[in-house]
């Protein structure tokens, strides 16, 4: 059974075209009919929203009359996620195969490789891989650097950057698949999804695996390819096990959910299964927080980061997240009082849903999950003793 990371040893450089074709066979010629195969495969997107890929391709293809644009989203704005960079650095031809299939299926005029401006190894690898491809593919493709901002990975920000040169999210409607770059229907797809597409074209079904990044207090943090439904505990074991007994697990990155480690271990890593439990896998980051680290301080730090990553287009997001981050920091530094907690609750309710994009909503959900999972830690937090150097 094929896996995304099969083939050349990951410790070595990128898999070149010859090796890729030898291992998997040439890229099948496929046009619009491939979309039905994709729908039947049930593949869901790997960018965080887990939207069914086939349906997305259908809407773009329906509106395209040769004008569509494909954006290969390798921006990976989530700081702790490494999977997209890994794929671009080691298996670029899987991604380019997927992009080529997408371009043909939706009849695209252009393909844009959207890669983080600071992810040099990934950009070099994709550039070299692109140079190996056929002329008719290369002609359509250009590379655009994604600014190193958290929101730059969002679909509307990607479209905005390609269109107007600024990676700030825009108001939807219309969404990218309706009117994107130059007003044309635009397919924005994560690189891992496209890699899966490359395999689906050859075998008819997806690998049944997904890429996760295990981060934080484990012995071998990094990217793992796991079977869907693998538990969090099994994934952490594959990452070498926890370096010290953990208290908390953050599932789904900075827009994810905090939970007590004991409650996290048995959870199946699968988008649908988690969604049924009111959770979200997001872009697959599993953060393990060792007990020597303080949840409250960690949350305050991440809230400060999320507040500073607001694109400052909407008042409630910019001021609201800053106020929430300041309140969290105040609790972390001098301890909590009931006013602080009341304010956190009030502002959280007021900020949610009042921005043009999901940035404030994600940040609020992150904070709320921390407050509901660790209420005693927040209510009883005292400033930590500072050890002098």
């Amino acid at each position, binding site marked *: 059974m094929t896996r995304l990371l099969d083939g050349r040893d990951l410790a070595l450089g990128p898999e070149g075209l010859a090796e890729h074709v030898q291992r998997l066979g040439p890229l099948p010629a496929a046009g619009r009919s491939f979309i039905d195969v994709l729908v039947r495969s049930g593949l869901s997107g790997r960018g965080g929203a887990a939207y069914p890929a086939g349906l997305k391709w259908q809407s773009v293809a329906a509106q395209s009359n040769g004008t569509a644009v494909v954006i290969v989203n390798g921006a990976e704005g989530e700081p702790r996620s490494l999977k997209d960079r890994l794929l671009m650095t080691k298996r670029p031809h899987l991604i380019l195969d997927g992009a080529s299939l997408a371009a043909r299926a939706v009849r695209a005029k252009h393909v844009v490789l959207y890669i983080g401006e600071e992810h040099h190894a990934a950009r070099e690898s994709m550039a070299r891989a692109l140079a190996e491809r056929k002329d008719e593919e290369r002609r359509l493709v250009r590379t655009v650097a994604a600014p190193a901002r958290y929101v730059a990975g969002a679909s509307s920000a990607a479209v905005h950057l390609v269109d107007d040169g600024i990676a700030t999210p825009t*108001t939807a409607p219309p969404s990218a698949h309706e009117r994107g770059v130059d007003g044309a229907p635009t397919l924005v797809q994560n690189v891992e999804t496209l890699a899966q597409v490359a395999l689906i074209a050859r075998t008819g079904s997806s690998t049944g695996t997904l890429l996760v990044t295990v981060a934080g207090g484990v012995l071998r943090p990094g990217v793992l390819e796991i079977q869907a439904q693998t538990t969090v505990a099994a994934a952490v074991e594959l990452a070498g096990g926890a370096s010290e007994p953990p208290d908390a697990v953050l599932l789904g990155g900075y827009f994810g959910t905090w939970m007590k480690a004991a409650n996290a271990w048995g959870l199946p890593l699968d988008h649908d299964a988690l969604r049924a439990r009111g959770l979200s896998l997001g872009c697959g980051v599993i953060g393990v927080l060792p007990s020597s680290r303080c949840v409250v301080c960690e949350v305050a730090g991440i809230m400060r980061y999320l507040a500073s990553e607001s694109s400052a287009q909407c*008042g409630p997001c910019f*001021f609201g997240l800053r106020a929430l981050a300041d309140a969290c920091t105040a609790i972390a530094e001098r301890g909590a009082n009931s006013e602080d907690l009341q304010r956190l609750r009030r*502002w959280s309710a007021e900020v949610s849903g*009042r921005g*043009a994009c999901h940035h404030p909503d994600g940040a609020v959900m992150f904070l709320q999950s921390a407050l509901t999972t660790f209420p005693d830690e927040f209510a009883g937090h005292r400033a930590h003793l500072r050890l002098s150097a």
Partner: protein
Amino acid sequence: MRLAVDRIKCDGHGQCAELLPELIRLDDWGYPIIARADVPDHLVPMAQRAVAGCPVLALALQQRTG
């Protein structure tokens, strides 16, 4: 009819909350919170004034969908 705010255009002038306090109030930073998006019939004329009065045309009145 439903009220909708374009969050990016909105600059927190607050005139909508002055003209339509029954449906709109301001948060701690001067930006509108639409408590009820559905506009009752007797408030539609005031809602239209609020839409016309927004200095940056961020407020809109839309037909109820569905």
